[in-house]
């Protein structure tokens, strides 16, 4: 029966796809673990930076740095969008791009000039389709972004900001809260609102530090360092979230394939049984006609 052959073919195809999605799930799981370890190691640096910032705060120092100053009038801004290079990761890219576009339009309405910078092929394709022009696009950030690569971007932003070429910098990315909770956000990271991620590390006893060369100069160095660490954290968060999104999407796909294979197998068995029954009926009918 033609129907039966068709069912066998479909069943085979579904099983093959299941194998692929299952493998992709496993790959995403191992990559997620690696990315997660990297993010955990990077957190140490951020923690230390905020510790030193906290120490500086106790040295009766006025925090003033060009990167900390909010501009009275915002004219030019940059929106950096972090998407993935690869697809098959559920709503990961769509979520980020939705947030980013809403933010972009909001800025336009306020009359703020906004240039877009996008990392990841998916975001670039989408925005090209929407006919939005991009100032910069990057495709070299994979699942393990390197600090030296992010630093190049960070230095450029710092330079532009200090020189007054940009008044604010926002990053649209997927924030990683826990392994079961990530969401797309647009975060403003320049001017820096708070140093050290908002939570100042409080030590029990205040230590009297000797500052070399001076507390002011340490501050002048540490503010850009804190910014670079923050930007790097955005990239790491995005990388971890991407792997989680892919893992979840592929798990769903594998389960769907299992279900589909079950239904197809049932349909095939019914069709086979129907075939046998009708053949039997024909034989019996034929024998009865001969009597």
């Amino acid at each position, binding site marked *: 029966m033609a129907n039966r052959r068709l069912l066998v073919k479909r069943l085979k195809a579904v099983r093959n796809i299941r194998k692929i999605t299952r493998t992709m799930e496993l790959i995403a799981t191992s990559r997620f673990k690696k990315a997660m370890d*990297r993010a955990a*190691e*990077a957190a*140490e*640096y951020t923690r*230390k*930076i905020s*510790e*030193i910032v906290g*120490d*500086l705060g106790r040295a009766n120092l006025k925090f003033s740095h060009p990167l900390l100053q909010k501009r009275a009038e915002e004219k030019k801004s940059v929106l950096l969008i972090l998407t993935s290079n690869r697809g098959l990761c559920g709503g990961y890219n769509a979520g980020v791009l939705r947030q980013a576009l809403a933010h972009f339009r909001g800025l336009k309405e306020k009359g703020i000039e906004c240039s877009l910078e996008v990392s990841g092929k998916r975001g670039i394709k989408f925005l090209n389709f929407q006919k939005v022009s991009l100032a910069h696009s990057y495709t070299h950030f994979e699942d393990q972004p*390197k*600090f*030296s690569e992010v*630093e190049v971007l960070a230095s450029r932003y710092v*330079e532009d900001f200090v020189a007054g070429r940009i008044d604010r910098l926002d990053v649209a990315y997927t924030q990683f809260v826990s392994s079961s909770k990530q969401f797309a956000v647009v975060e403003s990271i320049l001017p820096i609102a708070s140093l050290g991620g908002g939570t100042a590390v409080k030590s029990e006893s205040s*230590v*009297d*530090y*000797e*500052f*070399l*060369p001076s*507390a002011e*100069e*340490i501050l002048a*160095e*540490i503010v850009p*360092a804190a910014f*670079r*660490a923050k930007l*790097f954290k955005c990239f790491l968060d995005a990388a971890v979230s991407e792997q989680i999104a892919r893992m979840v999407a592929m798990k769903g796909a594998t389960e769907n394939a299992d279900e589909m294979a079950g239904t197809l197998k049932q349909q095939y068995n019914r069709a086979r049984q129907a075939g046998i029954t009708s053949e039997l009926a024909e034989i019996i009918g034929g024998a009865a006609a001969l009597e």
Partner: protein
Amino acid sequence: MAELSLVLVTPERTLFDKSVASIRVPLFDGSAGFYPGRAPLVGRLGIGELRLVDASGATESYFIDGGFVQVKGTVVSVLTNAATAVSEISRKSAAVKLEEAKAAKAKSDDEFAVVARRLEKARKMLSLAGKE
């Protein structure tokens, strides 16, 4: 006996977290050494060699690229953009980097500062690689 431990962190990972006998770091204006019992300090680092002597007397060297050092109690934290074990630096690649830095032309004051920094980094790297 007073103890001293060194934590060497870069934005990517923690390279070193062990107790040591003494440490020498490149500060912005020259070398500084720490022994156990050092008074608290926060300092800006330059480019150069971080050398440590561990409890058994063996020395280890890292090439570090700027950052900060914090001494607090018995812990010395070194935060740097990039750190490489000196044994991993090859003389050849350092020489190539120096040539590249020399070839770079600066057109403005900002660019000049960048090129000067690259030159300094390459020279120090080469001089360190030569020792091994």
